[in-house]
């Protein structure tokens, strides 16, 4: 399956050649979960504070599906 992944607020440093907030496409096995995705991106678990799938916050244990839009964030805040 194809995943559309964006990482923010400094997390791009773990992915060679990636830019902050840039849309990255990854090919992974259907049904792979968030843990496996983080592992393949070399992003430490504790850095992925908010994990969004298609605009909704999800558990990392959730299975992912073809075409999902993923956003990964360290702790962020403001207002």
């Amino acid at each position, binding site marked *: 399956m194809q995943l559309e992944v964006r990482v923010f607020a400094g997390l791009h440093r773990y992915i060679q050649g990636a830019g*902050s907030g840039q849309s990255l496409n990854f090919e992974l096995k259907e049904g792979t979960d968030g843990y496996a995705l983080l592992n393949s991106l070399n992003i430490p678990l504790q850095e992925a*504070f908010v994990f969004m799938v298609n*605009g*909704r*916050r999800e558990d990392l244990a959730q299975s992912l599906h073809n075409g999902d839009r993923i*956003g990964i964030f360290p702790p962020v805040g*403001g*207002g």
Partner: protein
Amino acid sequence: MRIIRLDMTNLSVKTEEVPEKYRLLGGRALTSRIVVDEVDPTCNPIGPYNKLVFAPGLLSGTKAPSSGRLSVGAKSPLTGGIKEANAGGISAQRLANAGVKALVVEGAAREKWYILKIDGNGQQLIEADELAGKGTYELLDILRGKYGSKTAIISIGPAGEMKLMNAGVSTCDQEGSTGRYAGRGGLGAVMGSKGLKAIVIDSPSYFDAPVAEGERFQEAARKFSGILREHPVCGQGLPSFGTNVLMNIVNEAGALPTRNFRLGRFEHANAVGGETLAEVAVKRGGLATHGCHPGCVMRCSNSYPLPDGKVVSPIEYESAWSLGPHCEIKDLDVIGKLNYICNDVGLDTIEAGGTLGIAMEAGIIPWGDGERAVELLEEVGKGTPLGRIIGNGAVFTAKAFGVSKVGAVKGQHMPAYDPRSAKGIGVTYATSPMGADHTAGYAITANILKVGGFVDPLQAEGQVELSRNLQIATALVDSSGLCLFVAFALLDNPEGLPTMVEMLNAQYALSLDVDGALEMGKQVLREERAFNQNAGFTNAHDRVPEFFKNEKFPPHDTTFDVSDADLDSVFNF
């Protein structure tokens, strides 16, 4: 500590002792109480019977970390209800260290403009006609040049002088930059209506306001500082990229209002977000992180050099949104320029950007046209008829041009989250006595940021309770003088609130518990709401505009469906 009473009708300045009933109030609790006690809710907000009240928070001017908030209160020209707008910068610390508990400005303007000079010895009203018409950047250069580069300056720009409903009150940071605004609700127009152009505050210290039990206080303050540093958002998130880091996460969540609340995502969000801002700012010799006042742990401000050599500090998320995605403007330099104009002319950025979006909706300028947006906003400072319309805010402009789609509650434009895909903040927009104000009960915490639990932003369930609890806690934090951003840690760390209360207990020799302190928050809300009711507000004013209930919002295709009965239960406490 003393209360200064400045009567602009008689040009008299008096000092009063702090009455016992105000001794344990500060910040928002004090400004709102004085407004409730002394201002007729039916008065004209820019007439002689309104009063403008300034008060440092209870902890301001001490070594409590991040405690430099200044509250400004009055009846709002924009909403017609009570208003408390608070700001960072150094004014609250300077006032508290000059021994000032509150400043009450009353009466009506005479022919001339004045400034008020305050220091530890007293206060003096000075004629200042030569300052009329000055933008705040030049004004601060002049005043800090004359009175000292360490003075705090509270001021208004031309918008306040013209008594426009979107005029804010400027305060300054240590560097003398004017971008620290008690922006919302048109309080700059109230200051202008009194003929007061600026307040200059000189005091020798930032941290030496009186504390009853010094050692106990110091221990609690040290512990509180640790709690802030340990929290992932306060200690790590905010100091790295500032508030505009929210642009991307709110965009990902599909809650970023784009093109006047039509779309929940903006294609160019990343180009105007905090990560890009930090990178460009540093490349140009600016600052990705900066404290708005000494003693802040979070340092969420920034300093952004513009291509023309001017520097705008800060560009906040809310401003970047209103002047950016809301108008489909995708150039951070244009956003910075618009923000600079707001600071200089003396406008609230949220309302100003909201209004530019209405101007685009009306076809006065094209969507996304930054150059025309700059030209239009510059009209405000020139005082042209069109500029005065824009300077009166979004609802006024919508009426002037026959636009029905305006995202405002109680006359005040919404900030940077759509109530259909972050429904908790929608409850706050609808019900806060302040009008549509995100800071009044910042439900984005549990809705999106994974702070203080989780309440699904797309469902109606749980939002009323979330907003109610946040509005109560916020009224307390706004009274303490602590920056609202400490709330991220208060919500997650069970020791947060007790430690905050311990600082209050040590400073004022009290034995409050957390419930007792939260009661102050409840009392503030009850009083503000009662003022609004006496000004003519009913439950019908606690609603979001109808298009939020009827038009689906992509990408989640949700509407705002928290029931009216549920909204009417927010203040059941």
